[in-house]
């Protein structure tokens, strides 16, 4: 899992800019503060490297995925419906042409 390390010093520019460090980095290159595992989205300090996002951000991501899935489902349904209509209309047109 791509966990993220960051500086948790509130006054450090690396934190303000949400600079991500490598897992092997131990100290902040800007202020020298010890780095911690942080949420990849909101930069909140995390207790360990077992998760990439904090609980709230992980929930938000899942919610976004669900919203996208729902939207895709709706669009997909719409496309199928339109496809069906086009197909049946095409058949009618083909029948008419054949009769002529």
């Amino acid at each position, binding site marked *: 899992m791509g966990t993220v390390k960051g500086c948790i010093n509130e006054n450090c520019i690396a934190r303000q800019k949400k600079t991500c460090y490598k897992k092997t980095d131990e100290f902040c290159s800007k202020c020298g503060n010890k780095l911690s595992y942080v949420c990849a989205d909101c930069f909140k*300090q995390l207790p360990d490297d077992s998760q990439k996002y904090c609980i709230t951000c992980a929930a938000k991501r899942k*919610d976004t995925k669900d919203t996208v899935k729902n939207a895709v489902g709706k669009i997909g349904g719409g496309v199928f419906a339109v496809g069906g209509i086009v197909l049946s209309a095409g058949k009618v047109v083909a029948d008419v042409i054949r009769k002529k």
Partner: protein
Amino acid sequence: MDKFNVPDGSNADLTVLDSEDISPYDAAYPVVLLADGMKKRLAQAETAAERVYRAVVKQAPEIAQLQQSMRKGYRLVVDASESTLKAIEQGKIKLTAENGKTYAQLLDAKGRYSTKLPIKKEVFAKGIDPVQIANAMQMKAFQDQIETITEQISVIDHSVREVIQGQQNDRIGLYYSGVALYVEAQNVTDGDMQQALMAQSLRALSEATFQLLLTMKTDIQYLTDREYETVRGKRAELIGSRISNINQSFAFIHQATLLHAAIYCNQGELPAMLTVLEEYSRFIEGTVAKNAPLLAQCDVSDNGTENGIWKSRAKLQLDVAEIAKQLRNPEKTMYLGIVEVNE
């Protein structure tokens, strides 16, 4: 302020405020009242210390001036030989109160205390209860710890007062009921009625605390069990609403506990006050500290660091166990240094 209006939370400096300066419905009232009560108890301890100094050191005939002995107060006479009393000058006296009787113990060269010597209490005008003095002296001895407790409480009190603004539900109503009854009790002239109102106030505060505690535990359990996962597309919203409830419950548990402790403190019931603070400390340890990492992650206003909202709340470990043990102990002990008086 209209007493039924929910307070807006005061940001005033607690060290300057007096409980009479602010409305009882102000969010800062409990902590100010507690700080006020503690200040009064410490002032009383200061007076008691002075009285003990005068009564024991200056009025003991062997080591002080005899002309002092007929002043108002009382004289403590140790039933011991003169040679033993002379030894007092080299070391310390340990005064012990047990079952209403006072004893003296002397420190020997090996640093051990001798057997208990009974002390006669000779009252001239107005007696001093040795147990009360011992309590006051202990209060004085624990002054630093008591001040630390007040400071620790003040640290998290500010964040709590921000949460309280505009919050209402039936359990919070119980807290305000407790406040209202306490205010009424203070203005009642009949002693019995005052006691009854005070008891009702304490009961309302206790009920508010425990109801909110259960609500808070249920909300934490909801987050621990990740029950929000079952509702697709609304997980973040559900987490946010639970965290808001938890913050609200915590804020009013804090307020109700402080007011509870403050009432006991102002009534001179120090062991009861310490019991309340001990309970609060246990609640912090068992409910808040244990779940602080989870709560910090769920609370968007927390940055997850040691200075974050939940981790700083979790740090509130009130060191009251030792003071409570001493105050509840039936054997009261005070240590006095010997001072040469050359008047």
